[in-house]
């Protein structure tokens, strides 16, 4: 009995472990080694820390990272503020019958790829785009305005891309909130804000934190949206990594940046978990 159990465990776990090891762990080990290597001027390859030190010595690198992280945090918070009422509305206000309908509406944009979505935005917002066309037609504008290539446009695009990943954990956590708790608080003299901050948000913290982690990581790791919608001002850290690998042929530097991104974003999330008093194991559930 015991052996057969062990065998079945082994049987089911092996593909997962193999997948993890071959496709995730091995390449990362390779990258990690690469990040500590450097080609010298005379063509030799040596062990060095300089790829990592470069990040701290060269302001452009760490400033780009700080910028990316700060914008990712802004995007995460904005996404939260926008989707929270939406999730609340879907779970608590709309009847059960319409919940599926609303979820479908939210999911719909994600049936197409991110690239197509971003190009859709670009068609809408560009100087010769749809919105400008109508504004001009109705006489609201005299000259077309370039709405693309601003930070705000980029943030909007990132928020749009992230919404789904925030709304799903929020809906699942709010669904588990007993309506009676809200009513009880109301009955005990609480107003709307008290209910929100004392009952709903404390209850929703695990969902909020897990949504925030996902959105933060996805935004930090996004490449397309900042690049296409942010335009000329939007050096995102992922683009920096791409540039090191592709344009500069400096895989060692790119690998080091990749690991710095991993470590620094983990640090940001760790700080976020500390601040919200949550444990990763609770949040991941």
């Amino acid at each position, binding site marked *: 009995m015991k052996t057969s159990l062990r065998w079945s465990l082994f049987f089911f776990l092996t593909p997962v472990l193999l997948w993890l090891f071959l496709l995730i762990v091995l390449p990362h080990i390779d990258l990690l080694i690469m990040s500590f290597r450097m080609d010298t001027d005379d063509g030799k390859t040596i062990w060095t820390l300089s790829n990592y030190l470069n990040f701290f010595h060269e302001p452009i690198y760490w400033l780009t990272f700080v910028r990316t992280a700060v914008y990712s945090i802004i995007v995460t918070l904005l996404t939260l503020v926008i989707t929270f009422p939406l999730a609340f509305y879907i779970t608590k206000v709309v009847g059960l019958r319409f919940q599926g309908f609303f979820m479908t509406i939210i999911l719909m944009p994600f049936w197409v790829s991110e690239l197509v979505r971003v190009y859709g935005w670009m068609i809408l917002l560009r100087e010769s785009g749809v919105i400008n066309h109508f504004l001009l037609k109705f006489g609201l504008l005299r000259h077309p305005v370039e709405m693309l290539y601003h930070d705000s446009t980029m943030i909007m695009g990132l928020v749009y891309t992230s919404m789904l990943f925030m709304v799903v954990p929020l809906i699942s956590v709010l669904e588990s909130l*007993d309506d*009676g*708790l809200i*009513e*009880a*608080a*109301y*009955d*005990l*003299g*609480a*107003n709307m804000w*008290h209910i929100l901050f*004392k*009952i709903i948000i*404390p*209850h929703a913290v695990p969902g909020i934190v897990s949504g925030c982690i996902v959105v933060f990581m996805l935004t930090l790791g996004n490449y397309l949206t900042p690049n296409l919608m942010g335009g000329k001002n939007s050096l995102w850290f992922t683009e920096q990594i791409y540039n090191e690998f592709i344009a500069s042929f400096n895989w060692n530097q790119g690998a080091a940046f990749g690991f710095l991104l991993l470590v620094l974003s983990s640090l940001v999330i760790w700080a976020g978990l500390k601040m919200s008093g949550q444990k990763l194991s609770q949040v991941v559930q």
Partner: protein
Amino acid sequence: MQIALSVQNVIKKFGDFTAVDNVSFEVPDGGFFSILGPSGCGKTTLLRMISGFIEPSAGRIEIRGRDMAGLSPNKRPVNLIFQNLALFPMMSVAENVAFGLQRRREKKEVIEQKVAEILARVGLPGFGEKKIHQLSGGQKQRVAIARCLVLEPAVLLLDEPLGALDLKLREQMKVELKKLQAQVGTTFVYITHDQSEALVMSDKVAVMNSGRFEQIDTPPNLYNNPKTPFVARFVGDNNTWSGRIIACTQEGPGEIVAEIETAEGERFRVRSTDRFAPGAGVDLFLRPESMLIEPDADIADLNRFQVVVKSILFDGANSRLLANPLTADTELLIALPQNRQYDYIQPGDKIAIGWHAQAGICFPKV
């Protein structure tokens, strides 16, 4: 005595459906008022109108003489104990109890003192730091009550709060709740579908059916003098016979005795709610414990008839005989006192039954 809660001609309609139909009642300060009715009778809707979660379609609700129209739940001097208690799981016991006080922006020391006092009062001294999930069912019950009582509401509304407890605990909590209410003197309005809860605890009970109050009365009156067939059927157990009036006689003020013939041909004298014309169809209600088994022959004024015992339903103090009258297969429940006197009775035995005319009651047939 001051009136704590006055409900006047309240109606609530949901579309075509009338959930609460012209209900009026008053509860004096310090009273324990129960609303008893089957599920779906509209009692929860009525309670939610009093607490402010629903606005009545018509009628007036006053609390201590103040009209409550348009006041939201957080502005009303009433508190509601929810069916599932709705304790805040993210807070400790003390935080739960302090929640309402904090909303009133009371001073921290005052809050701490009040919370400690009320927890001691409900029998949970020193439980403040516990988490909700560490409490037993009965303890949660008490926290929920403390959370409301600490606010000293004019009226405390309770929505079947004992429903989730197991039988033993429920019996115990009934007594405790009654004791607590007497101690704190707060007005309780309690809704339940469990007649025993209503009868044990209340000063007055309203029996509700399909949105209407059938009868508002003290528990003994409700049991002994039901005003409608529904009350007779719903409160306590009752045997029902259908029969016809032979004659009605007035035997004193408000006391009418009817002579009826049941469908199976027995003739009984029974208290009546009205002077019916001879030949009118009636329903006769007779409680199991009103029937005496093998009564002495010298007791006068008994309705007597014979039954065949079908089976014995042993349930301790609540044991019954299931029997048929000789001429029909109507099933009757007859109380079987467990005083060893009737141990000889076996299924199939033919026994004599007697009952007093005042113990039964008849209503016009519906």
